[in-house]
């Protein structure tokens, strides 16, 4: 019996729980019997014998779970085989990294969507290795786009010399609208906030912070020992409609491109129309440069609760598939 602990019970955590319920039978055939022994958010939890369906409903209705509890304490006390960590990203690591540290130290696998791992990537990787467990983080970059798995699995015998990506859907939506309609940045940003594509405080996205964090995760995955501070970063707020018009006359557009190679950068770049990176709307793209096979592109939706949860479910299955 695989015992699963879910910490972080927002949209992603709940989507994951719902997937477990919906796919229970097919999952059981793949990885064997499993049960969720803990769900927790920032201040409350349910654990032991409980109904997962009920937990989802309670959280949806009341915004919290049954009992006042701290996940940090429960993770130390309870017995579980895998932690599914989906608390919000904090650039300093925060509680998310603490949860993962506790789980790995106690010999549990970790599956996460939490980009906080950027603050302690090497430490967590080494801890997992030492304990003989897995740290799976496909969901941290590009939601369900299988980029981490592709790098670590299929491309593990290739030499990856660098990568470039459009890693933030919010920015890409804004840039696509500016390009199509000749609108100002401010105008499109307001529109994006109303649509719920951008946060009320959009700085995390539009200043390239989110893209830079994902870039660092990808860079580490291809073997570059990088930290967030190493990324040269420039956001998109200075862009003008005239810039798109001028670029267009040469057959180019402008995209917020995250690039890792000799150096790390996230900044608006000119991209030829028709190039994989000239993707539109909220889509994400990652182009991996290999010595053997040139460039390999992966594209798909960059965000979403179910998309992200699906990546974590795939990670979970990968852990147990490979060890059976």
């Amino acid at each position, binding site marked *: 019996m695989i015992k699963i602990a879910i910490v972080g019970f927002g949209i992603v955590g709940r989507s994951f729980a719902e997937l477990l319920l919906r796919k229970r039978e097919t999952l059981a055939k793949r990885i064997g019997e499993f049960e969720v022994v803990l769900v927790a958010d920032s201040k409350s939890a349910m654990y032991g014998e409980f109904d997962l369906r009920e937990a989802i409903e309670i959280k949806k209705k009341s915004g919290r779970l049954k009992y006042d509890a701290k996940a940090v304490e429960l993770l130390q006390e309870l017995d579980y085989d895998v932690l599914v960590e989906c608390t919000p990203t904090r650039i300093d690591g925060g509680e998310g990294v603490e949860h993962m540290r506790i789980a790995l130290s106690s010999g549990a696998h970790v599956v996460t969507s939490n980009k906080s791992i950027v603050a302690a990537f090497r430490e967590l990787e080494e801890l997992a290795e030492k304990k003989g467990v897995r740290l799976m983080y496909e969901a941290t970059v590009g939601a369900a786009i299988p980029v981490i798995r592709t790098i670590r699995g299929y491309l593990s015998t290739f030499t990856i010399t660098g990568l470039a990506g459009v890693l933030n859907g919010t920015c890409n939506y804004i840039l696509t609208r500016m390009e199509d309609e000749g609108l100002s940045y401010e105008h499109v940003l307001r529109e994006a906030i109303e649509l719920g594509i951008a946060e009320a405080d959009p700085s995390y996205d539009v200043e390239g912070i989110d893209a830079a964090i994902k870039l660092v995760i990808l860079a580490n995955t291809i073997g570059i020992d990088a930290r967030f501070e190493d990324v040269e970063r420039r956001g998109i707020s200075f862009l003008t409609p005239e810039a798109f018009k001028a670029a267009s006359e*040469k057959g180019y557009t402008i995209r917020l491109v995250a690039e890792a190679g000799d150096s790390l950068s996230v*900044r608006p770049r000119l991209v030829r129309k028709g*190039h994989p990176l000239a993707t539109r709307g909220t889509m994400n793209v990652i182009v991996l440069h290999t010595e053997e096979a040139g460039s390999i592109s992966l594209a798909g939706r960059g965000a979403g609760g179910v998309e992200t949860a699906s990546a974590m479910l795939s990670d979970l299955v990968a852990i147990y598939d490979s060890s059976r």
Partner: protein
Amino acid sequence: MTVVVELEDKPGQLLRVLEPISKLGGNIVGIVHQRGRKTPLNRVPVEITLRIDARRVGELVERLEEKVIVRSVDEVTMLESTFLLLIGHIIHTDLSDTITRVDSSDAECVEIFVSMPRRSEASTALLTIAARSKEALSIAVARLKEVCARKGIEVIDPIDGDFV
């Protein structure tokens, strides 16, 4: 560089030009016979574009002149070019100074389009830089970025390479 020579219209003439180029380590990029522009003496102008170490250009021209009529030598052939977008107060921060910083014997700003939406608002410029080599181009771009950073102008450069 580009050399235009006049060759007699009979077999084997081109070889007289190619030999010295090859001996001096030059690499021919293109050859155009301008048959339609034969001279009154029935010679054909031939335009040869080649890459060669800048220090050997003098010697090459001397050797060519021994064998054929050299009509013109254009030492700086811009083989590499890129364009960049500049956003900011481009005009009021001395545009001509910005451009002059890029120009050198190996690279120059060859084209610029500026659009100014409204006074006091940021302008946008599309700037094309041509250079003799990739290295010269990246030096020129770095120089432009440096001067723009000082002037508070944003620079957007293309992603490297076309890997489609």
